[in-house]
């Protein structure tokens, strides 16, 4: 049983209210942190090895230490609660069930970074979650954890909740800052990075909800203790939001030492593939990371079992590996069609492209149209190569990582499931009525049994 740091208190009745949360040990980290030096808090976070939970996995302590500190200029902390990656719903679960944890983490982080005004940018679709958070913020303020002179330490902090209008691109940190300033949510051209010039032109740190929540156990237990959980450079616990064809979809907190096989098949977590079917493929980190076929998902190219952590999931690069991403674990069983699945993803990225830079604006639409052609039985062999060519020229040539996010799933689908694409082209009528089934490789579990 994994030691839970974030979700250990979610089942306590009334944990959403301040009284219950405080009784269960809430806001202790604020009391502890306000007595520390700000530099020491950043050091603790560095020691903990905590990595950003939003997708890129950048070490949080390092990010904090990059924050420019010019005299007389305000600094800001912005919490990225614009969780719009398809397949990811961990932040929503955190904010819904234990909103005070985020507020507590925000206060500690704001103190460490010297931010007197902090923002929580929450996506527009989470309107009920925003209401829950607002209640939590108000309660925290009434009890003296927000506002002027918190707990007599002389530190002032206000946290504002800002609702987005429901654009995926506003989850990109610079687009989020633009949107926060009231402009069109278009990503900025970097450099300058937000740590130098962020919201309102001031140094800004943008962190994911889960990252900020994880600050609380880091402060409570100390960075050393936190870094001992997990393995290697993947320290602490990670929330995984599992969905797809599994028996028990939901948000699970893991300590990154378990294997992918255990995560999918053990009763503690996903509970196996639904309806007794076989595993075909899986996207381990939200829609934008490469899809992996079952054989590469359970074992790396070197034959070692793949573990649920940053390094192991990325083992083999994007050729035979994938990425931890934001922890949206989407499982596909043998009756799913990879072409249709990737078409859906492409349609999403076409719809959400902001239209600022040309490769992404035009390329994503083109990808979707080619997918539609193949999926509706009108495809030709050259279309598969064209898909590859189009995604190749989007990747890396755009302003923000959105272009990469739109092209990686396409590249991985063609790389691992080209036979399925070709089957669609060769059997235009059959592909409309039935699915391809398992790809032509050995089922790793059957091999193990026999």
């Amino acid at each position, binding site marked *: 049983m994994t030691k839970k740091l974030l979700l250990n208190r979610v089942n306590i009745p009334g944990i959403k209210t301040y009284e219950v949360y405080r009784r269960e040990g809430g806001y202790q980290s604020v009391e502890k942190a306000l007595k520390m030096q700000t530099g020491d808090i950043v050091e603790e976070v560095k020691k903990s090895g905590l990595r950003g939970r939003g997708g890129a996995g950048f070490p949080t302590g390092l990010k904090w230490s990059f924050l420019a500190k010019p005299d007389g200029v305000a600094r800001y902390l912005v919490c990225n609660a614009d969780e719009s990656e398809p397949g990811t719903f961990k932040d929503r679960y955190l904010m819904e069930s234990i909103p005070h944890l985020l507020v507590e983490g925000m206060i500690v982080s704001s103190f460490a970074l010297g931010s007197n005004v902090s923002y929580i940018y929450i996506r527009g679709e989470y309107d009920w979650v925003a209401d829950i958070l607002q209640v939590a913020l108000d309660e925290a303020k009434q009890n003296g954890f927000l506002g002027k002179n918190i707990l007599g330490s002389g530190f002032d902090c206000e946290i504002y909740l800002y609702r987005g209008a429901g654009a995926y691109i506003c989850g990109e940190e610079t687009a989020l800052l633009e949107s926060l300033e009231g402009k069109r949510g278009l990503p900025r051209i970097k450099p300058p990075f937000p740590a130098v010039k962020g919201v309102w032109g001031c140094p800004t740190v943008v962190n994911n909800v889960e990252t900020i929540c994880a600050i609380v156990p880091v402060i409570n237990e100390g960075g050393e203790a936190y870094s001992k959980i997990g393995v290697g450079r993947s320290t602490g616990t990670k929330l995984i939001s599992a969905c797809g064809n599994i028996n028990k979809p939901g948000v699970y907190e893991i300590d990154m030492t378990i294997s992918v096989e255990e995560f999918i098949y053990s009763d503690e977590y996903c509970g196996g593939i639904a309806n007794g079917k076989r595993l075909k493929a899986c996207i381990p980190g939200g829609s934008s990371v490469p899809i992996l076929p079952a054989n590469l998902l359970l074992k790396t190219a070197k034959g070692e079992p793949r573990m649920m952590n940053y390094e192991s999931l990325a083992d083999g690069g994007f050729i035979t590996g994938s990425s931890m991403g934001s922890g949206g674990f989407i499982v596909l069983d043998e009756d799913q069609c990879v072409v249709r699945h990737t078409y859906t993803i492409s349609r999403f990225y*076409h719809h959400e492209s*902001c239209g600022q830079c040309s*490769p992404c*604006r*035009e390329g994503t639409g*083109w990808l979707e149209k080619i997918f539609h052609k193949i999926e509706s039985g009108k495809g030709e062999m050259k279309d598969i190569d*064209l898909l590859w060519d189009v995604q190749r020229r989007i990747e890396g*040539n755009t302003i923000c990582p959105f272009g990469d996010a739109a092209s990686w799933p396409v590249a991985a689908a063609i790389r691992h499931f080209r036979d399925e694409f070709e089957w669609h082209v060769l059997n235009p009528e059959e592909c409309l009525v039935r699915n391809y089934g398992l790809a032509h490789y050995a089922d790793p579990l059957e091999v193990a049994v026999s």
Partner: protein
Amino acid sequence: MSEEIKNTPPALFTVTIDGITIQVPRGTTILNAARMIGPHVAPPTMCYYSSLEGSGGKCRTCLVEVAAGSTKDPRPMPKLMASCRTEVMDGMIVKNVTSERALDARKGIVEYLLINHPLDCPICDQAGECYLQDLSYDHGIVGTRYEFKRRTFVREDIGPYIQLHMTRCILCYRCLMVADQLTNSRTQGILLRGDASEISTYISKAIDNDFSGNMIDVCPVGALTDRTYRFKNRVWFLKPFDAHRDCDKCCGKVTLWNRGDEVFRVTSRKDPWGEVQVIDGKAAWICNTCRFEKKRTSDWVIEGPTKINRHSVISTNHYVKEVTPPDPLDKALFGRDPLLLMDIKEQSGVNKENIDLSIIPGPATSTTFEEHDERKEIEEAVSERLSINNHKKLP
């Protein structure tokens, strides 16, 4: 070399672009450093406009490969960089035309820009001075692989002078920056998002402002065209003249485009990069009165013909051209000697200088020359063949 380094103040950065080293002031972008070297190494731009603050970075045509970041940190940059927004570092090594990656990416971007472009150049007023046309000639591929419906919009007249043809737009955002930076209020903006986004005035509100005409000048394609000049003439039939008048709103320094004595249109003066000239430290934007109202030669003091130095369809005609700068191609090739650039006379047996071609009957092949390398032998061979027509002798 060591003396040179001593003499340079530390504010100058040494940057190498396509094998050519240049020293530029701190804060210069890669694009501007390349422009200082010359048009052969300068990356193309569709959205960057030096006189407009904050432009650039959107079209991605100016992507270059940075082979070494700086002297301190000589690692190459993993991604291609937008040269218009990346500042040079000391010791940076940039590859533009020598980088296959950059050229390949550019080819892709031309393709992306063209998939939703109507390609109606034969009826487009911008044809001849269109950036997209130039870009496609230089970097595009023949034909398209796009086989789906192109996006179309209804033409819109915005105000009395400007027509918006959104179908042709490549969303460079320049016209929004003109409105933000030159006029008092911006009435147009981007509606929707992604490839459905369009530039429009909300409920087709007219653009009516003294400097709105400059949007026509900055538009790289034919999306914003001059209504008073629409379908009047093709740009390559017109003769440009530099002219000026006393104007209380703007600098009054313009280019007149005449055919005979008739002024067909008035534009601002352009520099070799197709951007508005900077005169006395200020960008020479012109007002709508100069642009649309003063269309008689008598309104203007003509200074002389405009010198056009733009690598474009427009300059292939009989305009007065500027003296071109020395060709930096030799330097850019790193001493490589591609087959096409060799002097044919040194490499081939054909076309020897010492042979008068006029005496050889019919087409000569290399064997004709190889067989008779010696001059006398050739003479003999020629005289044999020219038994009738023997009036001309070799010297």
